[in-house]
C-alpha cells in the first residue's frame, strides 16, 4: 500500500523530474513528508510566485518541464501571475497545488480556493484529482501536455485526502493517458511548404520574422541554414533573441516597439515576410494595417489558432518549426542569394541607423550591457526583469545561442527575472547567470535574496538603478507631459540589503568603475549584487508609440544624415 503523496513523488521521478521549487503549508504536508527523504531536490523559495517563476526559468534554460509546488488557498493563489506568465510565453511547467479534502470542496473550508477554476483561462490544461488511483496517470498526462505541441503550463490540484489515501500497487492506474482531443500537428504539409518555397524563389525583398517558437522547437540551426541558403535577413522578437547569433551578418536584431530601426524598415519594405514561431503580437506589429504592408506572408506555427488570428497569411503552415524548416531546406530546389540589391539596402540601413550609444562620461545603461556582453563574450545566461532594463538588455547584449535569454515577454511580469534566474541556474549550473534588473522590478521579489544566500546560487545581480519605474516614467515623459505620477522611487541601499542576507555587493556611481565592477562580480565565487546608478531619465530608443506604424519611430538615430524610408 502506498499513499497518494508517495505515488506523486514516484510519478514525478518517472517523468525525470530532478528538482522542485516550492513552499509548504497544511494541505501539502503529506507531500513534504515524502520529500523529507526523497531522492529529489526541493528548493525552498520565499514566496510561491518565486517558485513558479523559478520553474519557468528552469524550463526556459533547459527546454525541460519545470515543476513547482504550493499549498492550497493563499499558496496556490500566489502562483497565478507566474502561471499566466508561462502561459503567455508558452513555457512548459507543471504546477502542483494542495487542496482541501474532497469532502470539503466548495464549502469555503480553511484555505480553500478554486484554483482549477481560477487558472482555467491561464493554463494549457488543469486537473483536480479526486482519486489517488488517478495520480500517476494524471502526472503523466500533465507532463505530456505541458511539453508537447505548443508548450504551456498545466496545473494539478491535489486534495489532502487524496494525498493521504492508501492505494494498493495493482490499483494504481498506469499506462499511456488517453487524450482523444489532443493531437498536435508536428509535420508541415508538404504542398504548403512547396508553395512557401515558390514565394521565396520569387521574392525580391524577403525577411524572416522569428519568434520564441523557434527557440522552443530547438530549430535555430535549421533557421540559420535556411536564412543562409537564400540570404534572408532575419529579425527576431523579444522571445526569439538567440535564435540566430547577434553578430551573424543576416541578423537585424529585434523588431517592433523597441526594435532596431533597420529591422523595422526592413519589415516595412519587405515583399515576403516569413513568420516562424511568432504571433504578430501588437508590441511587434504596431498599427497592424501598416505592418509589412507590401508583403506576402508565410506563417509557420505549431498552433493552428495563431494562423489568421491577427494577420491572414498567404501561405499558412501548421507544424513544429524544426520539422517545417528542415523540410523547407530539404525540398528547396534552388538556392543562392536571391536578393543582392535588397541585402545592400538592408546593410546601408544598418550602417546609417545603428542603435544609439553615447559615451560622454555618464553612466549609460546601454554601455553597461555592452561591457557585460564583451566580458562574457556574448555567453552565459542573461535573465531580465521588466521595463527599460529589459529592453536595453535585449537591444545591446550579443546573444550567441538559443535559451541564453530569459525574459517575460507576453505578460511582462515585473518580479519575474530574479526567481527565473534562480531556476535557470539549477538548469545550467555551469553557465554564468546574470540578472539584469530595474530597481522597481527587483523589489517585487527581493525576498529571494534569502534563497540565493541559502543555496549559494552564484547569480550576478545587475541593477540598472534609475530610482524610477523607468519605463512608465518614459511614457509619462513622452505622452503625459512629463507628469511623473507615482513613478519616482526613493533611494534604496541595495548593497546594504544584500549584505544583510550575507550577499556581497557594490554600488557603482561612475563610468570608470563599470569595467572593474562587472569583472569583480563575474569572477566572484558566489552571488554578487551590483547597484549601478544610471542616468535617471535615460530613455529606450528607438520607440514606436503604441498604435503607430513601426516605421514611425521616435528617438531615431541618424548617422551620416541618412534617412529612413
Amino acid at each position, binding site marked *: 500500500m502506498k499513499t497518494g503523496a508517495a505515488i506523486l513523488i514516484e510519478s514525478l521521478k518517472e517523468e525525470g523530474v530532478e528538482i522542485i521549487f516550492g513552499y509548504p503549508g497544511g494541505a501539502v504536508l503529506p507531500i513534504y513528508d515524502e520529500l523529507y527523504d526523497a531522492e529529489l531536490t526541493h528548493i525552498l523559495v520565499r514566496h510561491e510566485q518565486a517558485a513558479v517563476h523559478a520553474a519557468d526559468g528552469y524550463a526556459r534554460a533547459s527546454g525541460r518541464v519545470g515543476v513547482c509546488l504550493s499549498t492550497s488557498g493563499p499558496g496556490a493563489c500566489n502562483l497565478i501571475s507566474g502561471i499566466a506568465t508561462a502561459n503567455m510565453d508558452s513555457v512548459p511547467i507543471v504546477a502542483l497545488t494542495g487542496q482541501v479534502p474532497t469532502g470539503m470542496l466548495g464549502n469555503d473550508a480553511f484555505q480553500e480556493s478554486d484554483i482549477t477554476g481560477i487558472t482555467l483561462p491561464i493554463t494549457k490544461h488543469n486537473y483536480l484529482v479526486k482519486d489517488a488511483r488517478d495520480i500517476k496517470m494524471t502526472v503523466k498526462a500533465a507532463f505530456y501536455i505541458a511539453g508537447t505541441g505548443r508548450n504551456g503550463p498545466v496545473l494539478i490540484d491535489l486534495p489532502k485526502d487524496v494525498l493521504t489515501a492508501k492505494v494498493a500497487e495493482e490499483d494504481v492506474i498506469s499506462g499511456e493517458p488517453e487524450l482523444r482531443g489532443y493531437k498536435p500537428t508536428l509535420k508541415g504539409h508538404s504542398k504548403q511548404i512547396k508553395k512557401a518555397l515558390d514565394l521565396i524563389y520569387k521574392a525580391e525583398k524577403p525577411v524572416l520574422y522569428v519568434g520564441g517558437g523557434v527557440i522552443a522547437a530547438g530549430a535555430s540551426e535549421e533557421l540559420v541554414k535556411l536564412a543562409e541558403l537564400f540570404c534572408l535577413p532575419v529579425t527576431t522578437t523579444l522571445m526569439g533573441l538567440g535564435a540566430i547569433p547577434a553578430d551573424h551578418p543576416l541578423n537585424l536584431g529585434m523588431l517592433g516597439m523597441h526594435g532596431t530601426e533597420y529591422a523595422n524598415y526592413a519589415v516595412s519594405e519587405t515583399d515576403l515576410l516569413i513568420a516562424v514561431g511568432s504571433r504578430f503580437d501588437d508590441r511587434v506589429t504596431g498599427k497592424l494595417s501598416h505592418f509589412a504592408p507590401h508583403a506576402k506572408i508565410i506563417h509557420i506555427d505549431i498552433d*493552428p489558432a495563431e494562423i489568421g488570428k491577427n494577420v491572414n497569411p498567404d501561405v499558412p503552415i501548421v507544424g513544429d518549426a524544426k520539422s517545417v524548416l528542415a523540410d523547407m531546406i530539404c525540398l528547396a530546389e534552388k538556392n543562392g542569394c536571391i536578393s543582392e540589391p535588397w541585402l545592400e539596402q538592408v546593410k546601408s540601413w544598418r550602417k546609417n541607423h545603428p542603435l544609439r550609444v553615447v559615451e560622454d562620461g555618464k553612466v549609460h545603461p546601454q554601455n553597461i550591457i555592452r561591457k557585460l556582453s564583451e566580458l562574457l563574450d556574448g555567453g552565459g545566461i542573461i535573465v531580465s526583469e521588466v521595463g527599460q532594463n529589459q529592453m536595453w538588455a535585449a537591444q545591446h547584449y550579443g546573444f550567441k545561442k538559443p535559451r541564453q535569454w530569459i525574459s517575460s515577454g507576453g505578460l511582462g511580469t515585473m518580479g519575474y527575472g530574479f526567481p527565473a534566474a534562480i531556476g535557470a541556474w539549477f538548469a545550467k549550473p555551469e553557465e554564468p547567470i546574470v540578472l539584469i534588473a530595474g530597481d522597481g522590478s527587483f523589489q517585487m521579489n527581493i525576498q529571494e535574496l534569502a534563497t540565493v544566500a541559502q543555496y549559494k546560487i552564484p547569480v550576478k545581480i545587475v541593477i540598472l538603478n534609475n530610482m524610477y519605474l523607468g519605463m512608465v516614467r518614459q511614457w509619462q515623459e513622452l505622452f503625459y507631459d512629463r507628469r511623473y505620477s507615482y513613478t519616482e522611487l526613493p533611494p534604496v541601499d541595495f548593497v546594504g540589503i544584500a549584505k544583510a542576507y550575507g550577499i556581497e555587493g557594490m554600488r557603482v556611481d561612475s563610468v570608470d568603475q563599470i569595467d572593474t565592477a562587472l569583472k569583480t562580480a563575474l569572477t566572484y565565487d558566489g552571488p554578487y549584487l551590483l547597484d549601478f546608478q544610471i542616468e535617471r531619465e535615460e530613455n529606450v530608443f528607438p520607440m514606436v508609440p503604441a498604435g503607430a506604424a513601426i516605421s514611425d519611430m521616435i528617438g531615431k538615430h541618424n548617422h551620416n544624415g541618412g534617412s529612413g524610408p
Partner: protein
Amino acid sequence: MKQHIISVLVENKAGVLARVSGLFSRRGFNIESLAVGTCETPGMSRITIVVIGNDMHIEQVKKQLNKLIDVIKITDITEKEHVERELALIKVHAEPGLQRSEVMQVADIFRAKIIDVGAQTLVLETTGDPEKIFALESLLRPYGVLELVRTGRVALQRGGPGPASRQ
C-alpha cells in the same frame, strides 16, 4: 454579425462546460443557447452552442475550442445541411371553460402536447425550430404565459456518419 450553430464533441468530464463557455465569455460573446447531453459514444458529450458574432471572431473561438484538451471535435454546422430542434414547456393561464378550450385549440394547431392540467393552468410541450416556438408563445401570451422554459437548440448535420463514429 451572424448566427452560428457550433456542435462540440467533448469528453464527458467535470469542468468541460466551464472551459468551453469560458472561451466565449472571455471574448464578450453572449451565448444565445447551449445544450449539452451525452451522445452516441460512451464517455463523450455533445454540446450545441448558438452564438452571434462576426465570422473572424467565431473562427478564432472555434480554433481556441479545438485547443482544449477535452474537446474532441468541433463542427460549425451553420452553413451545412442540418436539422435543428428545440423543446419548450409553456405554462399558460387557462381557466376551465372557454379560455381553456381556446388554449387547447391553439395547442392542437401547433401539435403541442398538453402534459399537465392544473386547476387554472395548462402546461404545453412543443418541439420545433425557434420560430415555431416564438409563434406559439405569441399566440398564448394574451391568455397569460406564467412560465416558459426551453432546452436550447440541438442540431445535427444531415446524412453521413457523425464525427464521433469517425474517431
